[in-house]
C-alpha cells in the first residue's frame, strides 16, 4: 500500500478530495456553508463564555475595566480569529501548491476609533477598529514571489477576514424573558 503523502501536517490527497467535494457535492457544500453557531452566556461581571459545537471559549475584560482579566477580551479574540483564519488559509494554499512551511506567525493589531462611544460618552463615531493590521512572517520552501501569492490567496479566501473587511449586516433580535 502506497504511503499517504502529508505536507504541513495535512494529508495532501485527503485535503484535495475535500476541496473537490465542496465543488462537486452539493450536500457537502451546504454543510460547510453553515449555519455556523455560537451561544454566548454571561458568567457575571464582564465575563462571558461562548459555546461552539463541542468547544467553549471564555472571554473577559482587562483589569483596568474592573474585570478579572481571566481570559482575552472579545475584541482581542476577533483579532485572533482573523489571524487564525489567515493561518488556515495560508496553510491550505501552500499545501495545494506543494510548499512546505517551516514556521508561520501572524501578528495582529488594531486601535479603536472612538472607544468613548462604548463608554457612553460620545453619541456617534465608530467604537470599533477602523483598520486591522496583519503581518505575516513565514519560513517556507519557496521563493518570495510564491509565498506572497499564497498570502494574497489566504487573504482573499479567508471567510473571517472578508467578514470583517466588508460591510456585514448584523441582524439582531431581542426578547425579554
Amino acid at each position, binding site marked *: 500500500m502506497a504511503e499517504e503523502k502529508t505536507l504541513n501536517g495535512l494529508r495532501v490527497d485527503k485535503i484535495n478530495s475535500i476541496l473537490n467535494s465542496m465543488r462537486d457535492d452539493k450536500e457537502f457544500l451546504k454543510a460547510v456553508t453553515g449555519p455556523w453557531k455560537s451561544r454566548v452566556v454571561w458568567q457575571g461581571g464582564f465575563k462571558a463564555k461562548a459555546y461552539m459545537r463541542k468547544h467553549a471559549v471564555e472571554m473577559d475584560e482587562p483589569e483596568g475595566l474592573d474585570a478579572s482579566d481571566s481570559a482575552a477580551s472579545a475584541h482581542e479574540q476577533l483579532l485572533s480569529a482573523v489571524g487564525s483564519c489567515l493561518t488556515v488559509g495560508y496553510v491550505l494554499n501552500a499545501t495545494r501548491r506543494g510548499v512546505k512551511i*517551516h*514556521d*508561520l*506567525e501572524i*501578528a495582529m*493589531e488594531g486601535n479603536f476609533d472612538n472607544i468613548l462611544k462604548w463608554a457612553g460618552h460620545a453619541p456617534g463615531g465608530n467604537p470599533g477598529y477602523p483598520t486591522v493590521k496583519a503581518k505575516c*512572517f513565514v*519560513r517556507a520552501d519557496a521563493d518570495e514571489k510564491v509565498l506572497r501569492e499564497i498570502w494574497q490567496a489566504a487573504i482573499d479566501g479567508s471567510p473571517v477576514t472578508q467578514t470583517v473587511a466588508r460591510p456585514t449586516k448584523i441582524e439582531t433580535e431581542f426578547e425579554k424573558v
Partner: protein
Amino acid sequence: MAHTKLFPVTVVGSWTRPDWLIHALRRRQAGEISAGEFDHVADEAVLAAIKYQEDAGVDIVSDGEMRRDNFYSFVVEKLGGMRLMKLSQLLDYMKDRAGFEEILRALDVPAFAIKSPIAVEKVVERDGIALDEARFLKEHTTRQTKVPIPGPYLLTRSSWFEGLSDKAYPTREDLAKDVVKILRREVTRLKDMGVDFIQLDEPSISQVVYGDEAEQTFMCAALGSRTDPTHELEFAVRLVNETVDGIDGVKFGVHVCRGNWSRKENVLLSGNYGPLLPWLMRMDVDQLVLEMATPRAGEIEVFEEYRNEKEIGLGVSNPRSDDIENPRQIVARVKEVMKYFDPDKIYLNPDCGFGTFAERCVNTADVAYRKLKVIHEAAEMLRKEYE
C-alpha cells in the same frame, strides 16, 4: 598572544551565509541530512569565509561561524541536556507574555525566528563546543585565529527558563556552575590547540544597562531571567572571571554590542559604554571588543578614566549598512580613540558579525568583503604613521 603588527585587523566572528548553506542547515535541522553531510557542505562555506577574510587583509581570521545556526544556540548540538527552543515555543512559559509581545513588535521579529538553547536536563559536555570549528580553521589558514564562543553569562541567562530548567537546576546559579566548568575546559582546549584569540560573546550585558526592564526579554538572545542590574553585572563579572581564571597563553576578549538582528537602527539598543565600563574593566580579559561605529555607541570620552587598562577591539564598520566606510574616516576615528588607548592596544574590527543569525544575515558577502578591505586599508595607513 600578541600580534606583531600594530592595529591588527580582525572580525567579530560571523560571516554572511550563502543560500546553499542555509538550505543544508534547514535540511540538517529537519533530520533530512546527517551532521556529517552538513559538515561537508559547511566546510566549503568556511573555506570561502576564510578566503574572503584573507583576501581582504584580515590579520586574525575566524571560521565565519558558518556551522552555527546562530552565535550561541548552536551549543545545543554540542552539549547534552540542552533543547533548542523557538521563542514561539517558550511563550507558554513566559511570565509577562504581554510585555514580551511589546518587545517582539518593537523589534519587528517573529517569535519563531529566535531560538534559544534551554537547559532541560543536567548539561553535560560531549566533544567540545567549538573545537571542531577551531581545528578546521587552524588547518586552513596560516593567519592568527579567533574563535568566538558564547560567554558564561549569556549562556546561563539564556538557558535557564523557569518551568523548563528548574527540575535539573533549581536556580540559575546552579546552572552557572556547570556552564563555567564546561567553558573553562573549552577555553583550555582551544588554547592547547593553538587558537590565538578566544572571544566570549556577552551581548546580553548590554540589555542589563540599556534594555527594557522586562525580566524576560531579548537582546540578540532570548533571555530567560534577570534580577536588578547591579546584581546581574556582578554575576556576569564573576562568571567571566571564573571561566578564564589562571588560563594564560591565549588572548581573551569579551564582545559586547547593542544588537545585530535588524538593519533598523531604531530597534537596537543605544547609549555610551560609561555605565558598563566599571564592570567590563573588572573582567580578567585582555580586550573589550566593542561596537563603536555608529552614533548609538555614544561618546568615546567615557574611556578617559580607564586609559590603557585594556585593549580595545574597536568597531569601525557598521555590518548592517550597504555603505562602505571611508578609510580616512576610520583613521580619524582611531586617532580619536588614541587619546585613551596606545596604538599597540587598538585592534580594528567591524561592530559585530555579518551573520549573527544564519537566517537573518545583515549583509552580503560582497559588501562584507569590501568593508573588511577598507578596514585593512585604514590599518595600513595607520601603520605607516605609527610603526
